[in-house]
């Protein structure tokens, strides 16, 4: 098993939470992990990126070389475009569509979407809307995207669900259930999109 993921977003969107869950899942499967993160000034509402590498064999570099990533997972459409050069030619571009408009002259959404659709394997989800419908809050968008990306990772779903259970256990059963539902919705939606 070998998978190189670039995770992109805007500081505060929680890409590190997703990376941490996938990392934990991998370790529990005896898969090697390297995960490079962004801390410090860049975290304050700027664009952030994390590199997550998984492999059954030991991993050398902490960073993924541009043009070689298997998956680009973005919490935000403009950030997907910003980091698209990391993807290999048949890599999966998986992105949320809700823009974070905290800059002047944010590009027009349909222009961004048109460019994203040029990639060979693009999965575009409105994760915020899905989370809102399923859990009543957009906060679970992380779980939607985790579910979606799990489709492209060679790891059993039960492991992710176990980690979600542990992560939210403190907050009660209802929250645990809502997050698992969000995870599953993301999963089916990505499955449908990648087959369609």
């Amino acid at each position, binding site marked *: 098993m070998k998978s190189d993921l670039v995770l992109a977003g805007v500081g505060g969107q929680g890409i590190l939470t997703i990376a941490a869950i996938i990392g934990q899942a991998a370790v529990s499967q005896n898969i090697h992990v*390297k*995960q490079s993160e962004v801390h410090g000034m860049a975290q304050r*509402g700027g664009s952030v990126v994390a590199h997550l590498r998984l492999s059954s064999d030991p991993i050398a*570099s*902490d*960073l993924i*070389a541009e043009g070689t990533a298997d998956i680009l997972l973005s919490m935000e459409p403009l950030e997907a475009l910003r980091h698209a*050069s990391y993807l290999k030619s048949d890599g999966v571009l998986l992105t949320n569509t809700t823009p974070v408009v905290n800059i002047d002259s944010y590009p027009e959404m349909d222009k961004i979407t048109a460019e994203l659709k040029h990639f060979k394997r693009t999965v575009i989800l409105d994760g915020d809307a899905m989370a809102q419908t399923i859990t009543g809050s957009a906060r679970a968008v992380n779980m939607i995207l985790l579910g979606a990306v799990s489709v492209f990772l060679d790891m059993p779903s039960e492991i992710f669900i176990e980690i979600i259970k542990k992560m939210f256990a403190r907050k009660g059963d209802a929250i645990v259930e809502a997050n698992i539902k969000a995870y599953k919705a993301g999963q089916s939606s990505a499955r449908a999109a990648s087959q369609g």
Partner: protein
Amino acid sequence: MSKKLLLGDEALAQGAIDAGLSACYAYPGTPSTEIMEYVSQSEIAIQRNIHREWSCNEKVAMEEGLGMSYSGKRAMVCMKHVGMNVAGDGFINSAITGTNGGLIVAAADDPSMHSSQNEQDSRFYAQFAMIPCLEPSNQQEAYDMPQYAFELSEKLQTPILFRLTTRLSHSRADVELAGTANVQNDMHLPENPSRFILLPAIAKKNYQRHCEKQAEFLRLSNESPWNRYEDGPDHKLGILTSSIAYNYVQEAYNGKCPHPVLKISHYPLPDKKLARLMQECDKILVVEEGMPFIETQLLGPLGNAKILGRLSGALPRTGELNPRFVAIACGLPTPDLLSASELMKIRPPRLCKGCPHINSYEALNEAKKQFPDCKVFGDIGCYTLGALPPFNAISTCVDMGASISMAKGAADAGLYPAVAVIGDSTFTHSGMTGVLDAVWENSPITIIIVDNYTTGMTGGQDSLGTGKLEDICKGLGVPADHIKIITPVPANHTENSAVIAKEMAWKGLSVIISRRECIQTLRKKKKK
């Protein structure tokens, strides 16, 4: 034995704890912050009562570490690369006194300046102080090396510089842990206590002895398990690499490099291993993260066409390396890249919604309208973002505490009004001393301390002046009627800008403390 996913910073912290650490001293700074954060939350550190409080600056941390070492116990002092400039006095002289208990000075460099003002390379500090430097290439080495470093420090009676870089500090990997921790040293004072008294007569002897130790440092580096010569059949090229750059070389060749590779993780440079590489290979490619430290030593002042690296143009002169740059330098094929989208817009970091600094800058900008010649001297922290739109509020940002001293220097030159903006933690780090100069000369400067009760940029560490800032200013001699407290909220905008304008108009020293809690730490507290 157990496995854990750890950042490079955390692996170093766990390794030091397991090696019998008694004290960690640090001032927060990206990318080094997580070393102390890890120690302060570690169960075993809490059980053992390992010292784990933040220090007010790196120099103080360094001297506290040296005091712990003097008393025979193992200490680690942590900082970001520019913190080494602050700690420099104690650091360089700790090489002259030598150590008693093991002493690690961990410096985390930030090539590419992700969160820094420069990309200085701490290996030069080790060379300057003439002490050994260890440089792990992965998280496992960051965990394994502290034990070796403490033993080396105690055997050689010298501090050890431990160099990290951003991509190791902030990258997580599975690390195999020992699961047990060494017994800590008991307190024992140095056998020859006078070596800690750096009077010229003693310092001369110490320095002579330090110079004599260099041969031993070199011998150990040549024998070091961390300096590894990996032979390869194709001697047209030899690769000399260190730290995480080694991983990029491995990545480029998929672990099967046909050329000899010399991996350096222990300095001074092992001359015998280097000589072998130089003799056996036609060309040498130097792949190192940071400044061309090894490369310049190989080139010497006369240069050498055989040496390739950052100075020859084989690799970029500045910024951090990555696997693509290294693959290109090795002459390997790399995929064609997409050109950047024409839609792309940069998304710089910004102050958080609801941040008190926003209201402080709005009030300051309002006050400035009455003083077209006003210049604002900024400092290091979240509030440095006041340089960007929509505020465009500050004219300088140089180093910790420079706002106050530069404002005073500019006022000396006749610039009026000169305003300094500095955070509470930066103020107690290096701002207070500048105030004393301004008090002595009653300089006509206005100091705005943006007090959010925390060290915000690095994630909300304790700020040691919390609750004491007025008293500190009074104690330093700032006139009590020119110490003003304002609360930066939108409702106080008019009132606050009037207070600032009034103090700017007064041709003497004043301090305005603009005080409201950081919304990030406030949010964290509410969650608990």
